[in-house]
């Protein structure tokens, strides 16, 4: 893997982490409303997988969507502005944290209804399949969403129609306060893949190189016409499900154990050990990211609120 690439991944993961930390602060200050779901701990999944996509590939995910937005290259300022409900936000302040989208970057958004975006992903893939392109759709979802009807119907029809979708389950061990074991009849997500004619593969979601390779392979298989593919990324969220989570369902020890394999730490160690980067370079990147995030916050804070008319705009795409 060439060095520049790794440095960029490092930068993206640090950007997401820092962006999330600042979001949490702004939420505490009451500047962000609604629900806020942080991606801290899972950075390698979105960054590694999305790094493997080709230009025309689509990305869609659930409400824990900041990381994916930044990974597809959305402007941090526009993302932060959305969190603050400003008119300069990616969704004009109408979507908020759970509904970021950036269609110019083929990022079709975060969706707050668990599983609701899975058939949308199959539909996006159908569009490509119908036009005969070799583009695919990367659909991210949580472990908890694999127990809802949408999951079953979307994965089944995608296989029957041989649609170019890559299902990526971010198994962060919990759906809110419920462990995988207490919600799913099978302990791993890959065990669900065969029911849809897919083999499925587990990946270390804390290791960005593994995430990248696994995604690259899966996408290649899809382009070779092997039909939908399925990845289970083993990961963990360090913070609560959303802000204000009482965290009664897990121990501090468990969290500490996982912090041990921090995705940023793993890449950092790898680069230092392999002499792909030195401390200074990484510190420099940290500094730049710090700067970027501050500018994003400034931009968001200074951006105007939506005009009242906006309430009645975009109800329909076409007057009726």
């Amino acid at each position, binding site marked *: 893997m060439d060095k520049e690439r790794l440095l960029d991944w490092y930068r993206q993961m640090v950007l997401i982490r820092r962006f999330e930390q600042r979001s949490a602060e702004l939420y505490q200050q009451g500047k962000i409303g609604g629900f806020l779901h942080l991606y801290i701990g899972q950075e390698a999944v979105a960054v590694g997988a999305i790094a493997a996509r080709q230009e025309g590939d689509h990305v869609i995910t659930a409400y824990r969507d900041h990381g994916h937005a930044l990974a597809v290259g959305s402007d941090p300022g526009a993302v932060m502005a959305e969190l603050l409900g400003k008119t300069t936000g990616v969704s004009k302040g109408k979507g908020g944290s759970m509904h970021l989208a950036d269609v110019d970057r083929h990022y079709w958004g975060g969706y707050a209804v668990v599983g609701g975006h899975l058939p*949308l992903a199959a539909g996006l893939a159908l569009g490509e399949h119908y036009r005969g392109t070799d583009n695919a759709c990367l659909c991210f979802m949580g472990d908890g969403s694999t127990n809802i009807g949408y999951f079953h119907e979307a994965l089944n029809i995608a296989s029957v129609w041989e649609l170019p979708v890559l299902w990526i389950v971010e198994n962060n061990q919990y759906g809110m306060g419920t462990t995988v074991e207490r919600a799913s009849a099978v302990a791993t997500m890959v065990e669900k893949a065969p029911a849809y004619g897919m083999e499925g593969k587990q990946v270390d979601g804390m290791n960005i190189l593994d995430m990248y390779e696994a995604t690259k392979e899966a996408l290649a298989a899809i382009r070779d016409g092997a039909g939908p593919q399925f990845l289970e990324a083993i990961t963990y969220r360090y913070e609560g499900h959303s802000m204000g989570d009482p965290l009664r369902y897990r121990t501090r020890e468990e969290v500490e154990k996982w912090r041990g394999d921090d995705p940023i730490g793993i890449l950092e160690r790898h680069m230092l050990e392999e002499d792909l980067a030195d401390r200074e370079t990484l510190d420099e990147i940290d500094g730049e990211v710090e700067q970027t995030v501050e500018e994003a916050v400034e931009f968001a804070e200074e951006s105007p609120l939506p005009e009242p008319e906006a309430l009645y705009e975009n109800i*329909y795409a076409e007057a009726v």
Partner: protein
Amino acid sequence: MARITMRQALTDALREEMDRDESVFIMGEEVGVWGGTYAVTRGFHDEFGPKRVRDTPISEMAIGGVATGAAMNGLRPVAEFMTINFAFLALDAIVNHAAKIHYMFGGQMKVPVVFRAPGGGGRQLGATHSHTPDVIFSHFPGLVVVAPGTPYDAKGMLKEAIRSDNPVLFIEHATLYQLRGEVPEEEYTVPLGVSDVKREGSDVTIISYSQGLQVSLDAAEQLAQEGIEAEVVDLRSLRPLDMGPAIESFKKTFKAVVVEEGHGMYGIGAEVVARLQAEAFDYLDAPILRVAQDNVPLPYSRELEQMALINPEKVIAAVKEVL
């Protein structure tokens, strides 16, 4: 003009739009090999092939969601729910996704999908398979809901719906497929969200749509024989709701009866009445009455089911009550 059936009108509309635009395709249960449960897409599978006429598994959530996603990505799906009863399973896909995506993401995406769904009672299918739940889908912003009651409107509005960039729920009525009406050979469309006067009259205004329209027109004919001239307004679209013609007519007749096949309680008629009394208050001569399905689950027994459904007699009785 040729007199063709509602079924034929729908079939023609679909075929014409499929010929016209490559991005239009059909998906749903039994729409292909079977030819459509109500034979609306009969022959399409051979004619257009499996790419454009797609049989789906029994997966209503996927029918709703996949069609929505395909529309987001540039296609124009005409997704069929075998009956509107099964669309209950796709309520979230339809009203929380198809209908909200354009707004929620600040206008970044368009969702030009058409959901076709036949509904209605009167065929002894029992409580779960006989719904006319038009009102529950019409309650939500972002969705266009139409329910034509004549072959002419059905063809023109389906073509319009397919060309529209908005998500449209196109409600059909299983007992109207055999209904015949005049339909021109030449190309035409009928706008969505525009009501229409189907019969002129000066004594009373009957407001209805879909199957209720036919019941109302029957009633109007019978009333005419007694010298009572009813004006019959066809809403055609339930969202947006064009109250113009109804209000205009009411200001002429001072009396109105709203007729719908669905349950009366919290039904379409309630909104129409509320709008009429608010927007034409000074013309209220008598209470505006509603004729609708009894508020009971529809039973299998033919005799009991018919008791619960609307018919011309019930409409005539209501008209005489307001006169």
